[in-house]
C-alpha cells in the first residue's frame, strides 16, 4: 500500500528525475572504477566525491523547499538539522577508529584523551553500533524539530519571527558545539575517520558506494516529498501557505500540519548531513553557521521555490558555481552569491524552473493541466 502510494504520486517529470538519479548512482561510480583513466568518460575520485557532496546539498535543499516552498515556513536554520545528522554520523565514524588514533585509546576518541577525560560521556554510548548511529541520524534532528515546532507553531509564531528564531536556534547550537566541554570535539569537530561499516573510507570503492548511496537517498527523498506534496495533506499545506486563517476556519489544525512537514523536513536534512560527513571527511561547528542555512535558502530560490525539481537544480548549479568561483576568484564569490539572490528575487520569482516553464511551455500552467498532460504522456509511452 505504501509503495503504491509513493509510486503513484510521481508525475512524468518526477519519474524522469528518479530515473536520472538511479542512472547517476550506477554510471558515475562505473565511470570512476571501471573506465580506464585515459578515457574521456573516466570520472576522477575528486569529481566523484564533489558530485556526491552536491547530491547531499540537493537533499538539504529539497528539505528546505518542503517547508518554505510548500508551507510558507522560511527556515533560516535548516543547517542545524543537517549538522546534527552529520554529527551523529561523525560520532559513529569516530568510534570506528578504535585504537588506531594518535593516542591509541581503544574507546575514547583522540580529543577526549587530549582533554584528559577518563571515560566516554553517556551521549557517546551506543555510537559504536551502526544501526544505533543511523537511527540517531534521523531521530536527533527529528526530535529537536518536533519540540521546536510544537512550541512555536502552537504559539502561532509565523513569518519573520519564526525565521529569526530558527536562526537563533542554529546560532545557539554553533556556540554550544564550539565549546570543548560539550564533548563534540569543540572547534576542530570530528575528523580523521578511518572506516565506515568496516570499509576503509578513503578507498575508491567506498567513495563510489557513498556516492551511490547519496544519489539513491536523494531519489527516495524526492519520491517521499512528491507523495506528500501531491496528497491531500500537501494541498492543505499550500492552503496554509496562501491563507492560513482561512484554513483554520475550514477546520484544519494548522499547527499539526506544520509540525508534520517540519519534522519530516528536519529528518531529511539530517540524513543529508549524515551522507555529507563521510564524503568530506570532517564535521565541525561551522556547519551550524547561520550563513550556511541562508545559502541553502538561496539554492532553493535560484532553482525554483515550490517545485520539487527546483531545489535539486538550484543546489547543484549554485555549488558548481561556488566551486568554480572559489577556484578562480575566491574573494568575489560572496558578492556573486548576494548578487545572484537579488537578481533571482527581482527577476525570477520562480527560479530556474519558472524561467524554463515560461520559455518552453509558454506560460505557467495550472498544476492540474500539467498533471493530466503528464499522465497522458506516461500512458502513451
Amino acid at each position, binding site marked *: 500500500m505504501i509503495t503504491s*502510494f509513493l509510486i503513484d504520486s510521481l508525475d512524468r517529470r518526477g519519474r524522469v528525475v528518479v530515473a536520472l538519479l538511479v542512472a547517476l548512482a550506477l554510471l558515475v561510480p562505473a565511470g570512476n572504477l571501471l573506465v580506464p583513466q585515459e578515457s574521456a568518460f573516466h570520472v576522477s575520485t575528486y569529481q566523484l566525491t564533489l558530485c556526491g557532496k552536491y547530491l547531499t546539498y540537493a537533499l538539504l535543499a529539497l528539505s528546505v523547499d518542503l517547508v518554505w516552498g510548500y508551507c510558507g515556513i522560511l527556515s533560516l536554520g535548516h543547517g542545524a538539522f543537517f549538522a546534527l545528522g552529520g554529527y551523529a554520523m561523525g560520532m559513529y565514524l569516530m568510534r570506528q577508529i578504535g585504537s588506531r588514533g594518535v593516542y591509541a585509546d581503544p574507546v575514547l576518541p583522540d580529543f577526549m584523551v587530549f582533554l584528559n577525560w577518563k571515560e566516554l560521556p553517556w551521549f557517546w554510548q551506543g555510537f559504536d553500533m551502526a544501526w544505533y548511529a543511523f537511527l540517531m541520524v534521523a531521530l536527533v534532528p527529528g526530535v529537536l524539530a518536533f519540540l521546536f515546532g510544537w512550541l512555536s507553531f502552537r504559539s502561532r509564531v509565523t513569518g519573520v519571527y519564526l525565521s529569526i528564531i530558527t536562526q537563533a536556534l542554529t546560532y545557539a547550537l554553533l556556540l554550544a558545539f564550539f565549546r570543548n566541554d560539550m564533548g563534540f570535539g569543540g572547534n576542530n569537530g570530528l575528523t580523521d575517520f578511518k572506516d565506515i561499516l568496516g570499509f576503509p573510507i578513503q578507498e575508491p570503492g567506498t567513495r563510489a558506494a557513498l556516492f551511490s548511496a547519496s544519489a539513491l537517498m536523494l531519489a527516495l527523498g524526492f519520491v517521499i516529498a512528491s507523495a*506528500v506534496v501531491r*496528497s*491531500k*495533506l500537501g*494541498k*492543505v499545506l*499550500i*492552503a496554509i*501557505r*496562501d*491563507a492560513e*486563517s*482561512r*484554513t*483554520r*476556519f*475550514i*477546520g*484544519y*489544525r*494548522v499547527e*499539526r*500540519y506544520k*509540525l*508534520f512537514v517540519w519534522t519530516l523536513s528536519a529528518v531529511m536534512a539530517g540524513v543529508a548531513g549524515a551522507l555529507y560527513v563521510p564524503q568530506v571527511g570532517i564535521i565541525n561547528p561551522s556547519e551550524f553557521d547561520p550563513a550556511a542555512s541562508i545559502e541553502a535558502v538561496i539554492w532553493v530560490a535560484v532553482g525554483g521555490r515550490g517545485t520539487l525539481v527546483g531545489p535539486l537544480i538550484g543546489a547543484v548549479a549554485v555549488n558548481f558555481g561556488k566551486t568554480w568561483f572559489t577556484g578562480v576568484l575566491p574573494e568575489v564569490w560572496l558578492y556573486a552569491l548576494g548578487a545572484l539572490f537579488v537578481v533571482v528575487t527581482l527577476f525570477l520569482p520562480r527560479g530556474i524552473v519558472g524561467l524554463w516553464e515560461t520559455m518552453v511551455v509558454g506560460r505557467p500552467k*495550472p*498544476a*492540474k*493541466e500539467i498533471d493530466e498532460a503528464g499522465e497522458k504522456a506516461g500512458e502513451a509511452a
Partner: protein
Amino acid sequence: MTGKAEGSLLYLDDVSVSFDGFRAINRLSLVLEPGEMRAIIGPNGAGKTTMMDIITGKTRPDTGDVLFDGSVDLTRLDEATIANLGIGRKFQKPTVFESHTVEDNIALALKGRRGAFASLFHRRSVAEQGRIDALLSTIRLSDKRDLLAARLSHGQKQWLEIGMLLAQEPRLLLVDEPAAGMTDAETAETAILLKEIAKTQSVVVVEHDMTFVRALGVKVTVLHEGSVLAEGSLDAVSANPKVIEVYLGR
C-alpha cells in the same frame, strides 16, 4: 443560564471585549433560533466583525456567555474545533486558496476527517466527487473547475468562498459583507443564493448595503458601539429614531 439558551442555535449574553481600553463589544446579547436568517447592520466600528471573531474563536471575550446549540461553550474552543462543530465563516475580503484550482478549493473545504495522517492517505471517493460537482453547479462555477482560483473575478471568488462554506456542511453560516464590491446583478444573485441556503441552514449576514438587506427580507439587528441598538423588521428599525440618529448623524 443554560435554561435560557435552550432551544437556541446561537446564544450571546452580556458579552464584552476591550482592546487596549477600547470597548469593541459592550454587553452584547443576541439569540438566534435554529433555521433563522438574520441580517446585522451598523455603522463602521459598531463591532460586527469583532462579534464574528468571538463566535468563531479568534477573539476571547472578557466577560459573558457564548453558547452554540444551547450548551456548547464557544469561548473555550479554538477556531478549528468551532469550525468542525458546524460554524462556517466567510470573510469580508474574499479569501480563497489562490494557487489551488476551483475544484480543489471545494474539495479541501468538504466535510470530512481533518487529521494530518487522514489527509496524507486520503483518496477522493465517488460520493465526495458527486458532492463537489453538485456544489460547483450551485455556485455556478462548474465550467471554471480547473481554473486556478486566482484567476476568478471578484464576484466569482465571493461565490467560491460561499461554496466552500457550504461544503463544510455547517449548521450556522456567518457571512461578512457578501455583496461588497459586487455589481448590481451579482448582488441580486447573491441574495437569491443566500435565501436558498437559508432554507436548510441558519445564516447571519453582516451587511452595509441596504438594498441587499431589503432583498433578503429577514429580521434585522442594528449594532452600535458594541451593543444592540434595535431589532426587528427592516422597516421597523428604519423608522426607529435612535437608528436614524446613528446613521444620519447627530
